[in-house]
């Protein structure tokens, strides 16, 4: 898929999101609510015992805000594939001369671009002033952080894509989505940084891609991860991008052949 086509798909879904003013303001409010909840929670907890997980009280607040801003920016519509399979419009996607994977990614990118610009960034900036957060800025840290952000986005996109493809086998995908949200909330790092998990759970977490979605970029962007640690995390993240990419390809081929067998 060339860049112009990708851009076109992205622009369309960007514009679709912008149409609903009321929804937009509610979604901004929703973002702030979460930030209020978690900054208050961490303030209370770190008043009891500072230093847990290597965070200072100020550091965990910065983390909570950054992780939530990333989660908001990574908003995606993860229902499109299931809806297309159900109403049969998937057929028109299949005869288009563009890759199904890339087309979905373009649509998600447009959607997320809107939520990044219209919600994620304003909420981040506003919260930094509101909570007087100090995020150390280094060119190297920011560059690595942005790279990590892109990879985190790819991992989340492919996770949603894989769960979306379940629709080729089971019409009702919502239960699976619900389980995915549960795992993402618990393990993704948007609420609790991985550092605070019991040490015994960490090997188990390393077997799953979730922590590389929100935790890794947030930890690098706020300077929580040392430069050496950041490089290790980025390498792991890159490996997960590869694994998820391969899984997407395999799963898509299986899904496609399933559609052919069913006869549309």
């Amino acid at each position: 898929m060339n860049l112009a086509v990708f851009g076109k798909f992205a622009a369309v879904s960007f514009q679709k999101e912008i149409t609903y003013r009321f929804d937009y303001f509610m979604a901004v409010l929703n973002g702030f609510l979460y930030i209020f909840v978690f900054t208050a929670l961490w303030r209370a907890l770190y008043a009891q015992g500072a230093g847990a997980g290597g965070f200072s009280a100020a550091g965990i607040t910065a983390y909570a805000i950054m992780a939530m801003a990333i989660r908001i920016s990574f908003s995606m519509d993860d229902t499109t594939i299931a809806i297309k399979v159900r109403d049969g419009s998937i057929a028109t996607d299949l005869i288009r001369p563009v890759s199904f994977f890339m087309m979905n990614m373009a649509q998600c990118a447009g959607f997320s671009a809107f939520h990044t610009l219209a919600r994620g960034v304003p909420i981040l900036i506003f919260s930094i002033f509101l909570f007087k957060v100090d995020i150390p800025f280094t060119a190297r840290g920011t560059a690595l952080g942005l790279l990590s952000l892109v990879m985190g986005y790819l991992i989340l996109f492919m996770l949603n894509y894989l769960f979306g493809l379940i629709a080729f086998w089971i019409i009702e995908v919502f239960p699976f989505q619900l389980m995915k949200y549960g795992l993402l909330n618990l393990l993704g790092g948007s609420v609790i940084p991985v550092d605070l998990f019991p040490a015994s759970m960490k090997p188990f977490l390393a077997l799953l891609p979730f922590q590389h979605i929100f935790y890794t970029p947030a930890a690098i962007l706020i300077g929580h991860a040392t430069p050496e640690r950041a490089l290790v995390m980025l390498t792991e993240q890159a490996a997960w991008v590869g694994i998820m990419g391969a899984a997407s390809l395999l799963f898509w081929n299986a899904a496609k052949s399933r559609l052919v067998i069913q006869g549309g």
Partner: protein
Amino acid sequence: METLKIYATLALLSVRARMEYKASFLLFLVAIFFFYLAQLGLLIVVLARFKEIHGWRTGEIAFLFGLATFSQGFTTLFFNALVNFDQMLIQGEFDRTLVRPLSPLGQVVFSRFEASTVAHFFLGTAALYYGAKYSGIEWSLKKDLFLPFVIVGGVMIQSATRLAVSAVAFWTLRNSSLVHIVVFSSREFILYPVSIYNHGVQFFLTFLFPIAFVNFYPAQYFLDKTGENLFHPALQMATPLVGAILFALSLYVWKRGIGHYQSSGS
């Protein structure tokens, strides 16, 4: 009486329609269970690390979780249909309820009974039981009698907020994000003791969007948590009253909403 029978028939049939897809229903049950278990997992991780949250120990936090989840179970059982109410409105399904000799709200509610909420009851009961046991509640006759009122009050508060925000769709047509806030995000607030928030948020959760009455204030009473009174100690007993007032208010908003829809809709 006749009307009750009609609603019972509607509810029964909606459950039967749901059971047409047994596998999907079971999957749903598992998924809801899994989701709340993951949410509980977050609390467990936090408590494993910090032992308590603002003076509330594990058993007490479990009691909070139990009250919230249990009343949410009842709320979802009845008002699940309201989650997608804006779609009912946009696609014209709601118009149908207006041409039948029955309350539109009754038709909406009882045509989409959600039986999979047994997952909430199971989790809620377990958390309440565990919470009560490990926080060492000293039960008294007064507390025994008050508990059902607290549950009903909590259900009414949650139902009222859902009903009111669903009614917003009569004015705005699309309101899914507002419903999302009230149904899902608001739950985050009351998973933790409301005393952790600053005064502004406490005021908001007590007087403007009073979901603190679902679990926090009554839990203070049951757990005899003195020493962190917010605003006034009488609030600990106010849940049933708040529930009744809010529910009446939300019915009024709903009625006004239908009136607006009928005079402005296309």
